[in-house]
């Protein structure tokens, strides 16, 4: 042990106590170990270098997989940022940048607003209230006449089934010779009236 300390230069022994052969042996072992470690280190160096490169890229790209153009694009971005800081952009450029960053939100808002506007246009009340003046354009010499609008009631022209209405109306009545006819109205319990054509033949025979 003392010899090893003496060999490392940490202790000093008397020359008489130093065995020259053992010292030479220790020197040989040290050289052998150093050579072995250097060789192993040279062998592993490329592996470690590539690993550190990968770690650095991942840190820069925030976990995304790097592409081949990463180096170029990163440097271009840095250059742009530097130039932007160097020259202050105008309001239009700032707006463009802002629009580019918030394009999705702006477009969504615009589409929603357009849809709401269309719905409002579709459901807006169009009926003019009775009594309100309405501008009527008359063909010919231009003249604007204000006319009070009356309540317009739209009655559909039915050709099929009809809603319930009043009693039957006799538009025309033609009875044969020798027969007299009369139109009667029979009131009902619920206020309704029934129309009857009463025939009275003079022959007293059907």
């Amino acid at each position, binding site marked *: 042990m003392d010899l090893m300390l003496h060999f490392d230069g940490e202790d000093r022994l008397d020359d008489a106590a130093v065995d020259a052969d053992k010292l030479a042996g220790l020197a040989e072992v040290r050289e052998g170990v150093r050579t072995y470690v250097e060789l192993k280190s040279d062998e592993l160096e490329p592996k470690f270098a590539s690993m550190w490169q990968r770690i650095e890229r991942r840190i820069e790209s925030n976990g995304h997989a790097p592409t081949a153009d990463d180096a170029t694009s990163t440097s271009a971005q840095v250059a742009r940022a530097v130039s932007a800081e160097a020259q202050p952009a105008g309001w239009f450029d700032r707006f463009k940048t802002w629009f580019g960053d918030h394009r999705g939100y702006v477009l969504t808002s615009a589409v929603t607003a357009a849809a709401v506007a269309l719905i409002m246009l579709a459901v807006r009340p169009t009926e003019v209230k009775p009594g309100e003046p309405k501008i009527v354009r008359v063909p010919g010499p231009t003249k604007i006449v204000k006319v009070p609008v009356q309540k317009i009631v739209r009655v559909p*022209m039915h*050709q099929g089934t009809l809603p319930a209405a009043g009693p*039957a109306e006799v*538009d025309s*009545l033609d009875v044969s010779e020798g*027969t007299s006819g009369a139109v009667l109205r029979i009131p009902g319990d619920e206020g309704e009236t*029934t129309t009857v054509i009463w025939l009275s033949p003079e022959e007293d025979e*059907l």
Partner: protein
Amino acid sequence: MIRFATRLGLVAIVCVALLGATSTVARAKQASCAVLEIHASKGKRHMAKNIPVRLARKLRRAPFTAWQSFTVVRAVSRPFAKPGAAQSIALERGSLALRRFPNANNQYKLQFVLKNRKGKRVLKTRVGVSPKRFFLVAGLPLRRGSRDAIQVIALSCQ
């Protein structure tokens, strides 16, 4: 899969709406008229069960109060699909010809021609009949020289 189901649902809704609209239009174009031939006579008080209640109430009022027994001798229902459609109806006593005209004032406009049993035209009239309301033609006696029994024709369209 969800998108396909949504599309399928939309198609089904559209189909149902189309079917509903088509059936509504088809139903709206259909109109039919019912004719009841009733014989009214004096005697025991009787109102046939197949006379609708609303019509029976009318028959208990003047000028029908002179007759107490009312019997349905013929009941006919005929479709009038569109204006211009005509139907001829044979009655126990005589015959009836109906022709439909375009509706007006929410009424079915009909030409009503009544012939007696000898084929002689007794009445030709054009009337506007409100849906589900009765229009009556009455007064023709069933026997010569007797007012004991008369013919009543009730018409109702819908």
